[in-house]
């Protein structure tokens, strides 16, 4: 069955596999980012100037780097 996991579920599984010690904290950060993303795109309720680009980049860099060390 396709898409039986939500995006946040997929991230949680990836984070748990790549950084078991830091996964809880990163999952919380991801959940917050996803909430901000959804609020902005669905309700336009976030100030665009306050979108957390650096936090998102940091998470992306971390898991891209961790994944690349696995392949």
């Amino acid at each position, binding site marked *: 069955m396709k898409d*039986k996991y939500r995006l946040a579920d997929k991230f949680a*599984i*990836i984070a748990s*596999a790549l950084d078991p010690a830091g996964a809880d904290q990163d999952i919380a950060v991801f959940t917050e980012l996803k909430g901000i993303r959804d609020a902005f795109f669905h309700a336009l309720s976030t100030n665009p100037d306050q979108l957390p680009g650096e936090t998102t980049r940091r998470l*992306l860099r971390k*898991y891209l780097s961790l*994944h*690349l060390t696995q392949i």
Partner: protein
Amino acid sequence: MRARSIELYLLPSLTQAIGHDQLVLIDATGRRASLTRAHDEAALHIRRRNTSGALVTSSLVGSECPAGQTPRERFDTIFAGPAGELADTKDGMLLVVDCEREIADRELDHVVDLGDFALSLDAEAGTNFGDMARQVRHTALTALALAGFEGVAHDGKMLGIANMMIATGSERPTYIITPQASFTMSSKSSLLPDQAIEAVKLAHALDKAPKNLRHVPRLLAQSHENRLQPLSAFISAWAGLEILIGATFERYEASWTASISSALPPSAQNVAAVCAQS
């Protein structure tokens, strides 16, 4: 014939790769990226291309060759002047991106013969270079960023791009005149030996990664370049994160399912197996 593109990119904030005169980040068929303190061949191509641009510009604005001067002599005069010089590269390392590929033979339009090389204003030829060099540059810079150079790798200065066509069986380049871009920089640091090794590994992994994952370095670089525009920066980074998750999830799902199953009592394992297949 071959289409070759050389980019020379100065990383002022990366002063050295300790223990390496040259650090090859990517070395694959048709594409190569390396960090170095000096690269005479690339510098020569960039200087020739920049001089060609100045020569063409001076012609377009009506500057005439001094009496009796051939186009090559005019070229050499400009080449020896400020327009033929590269920006100061004493501080920082150079990233050299060198890509080439075979393309169908074709006659170039608007060619100026300058002896051991030529230049062309053929607009159609410019489309033969695609975005491979840009992708290789993003891959190399992202690998450096992931190895510990956040910001530094994306804040370099483009010294020049030399796009050229080379006829089969020849080494004589015809430079294609194309636009250029430049960036600014921030703080300085050195590339430690462990980071250099890490950067090479990451660049290799990125270069060999599945095609969908290769969009991620571009989006990461785009986000960083647009960091002063919060909306663009966030959208690029988020898109990169979603692509990363989508492209890699399958790999980790299997191990997660297995670890969950092994933790269940035997009576529940069959149920879990059925659920996993549904």
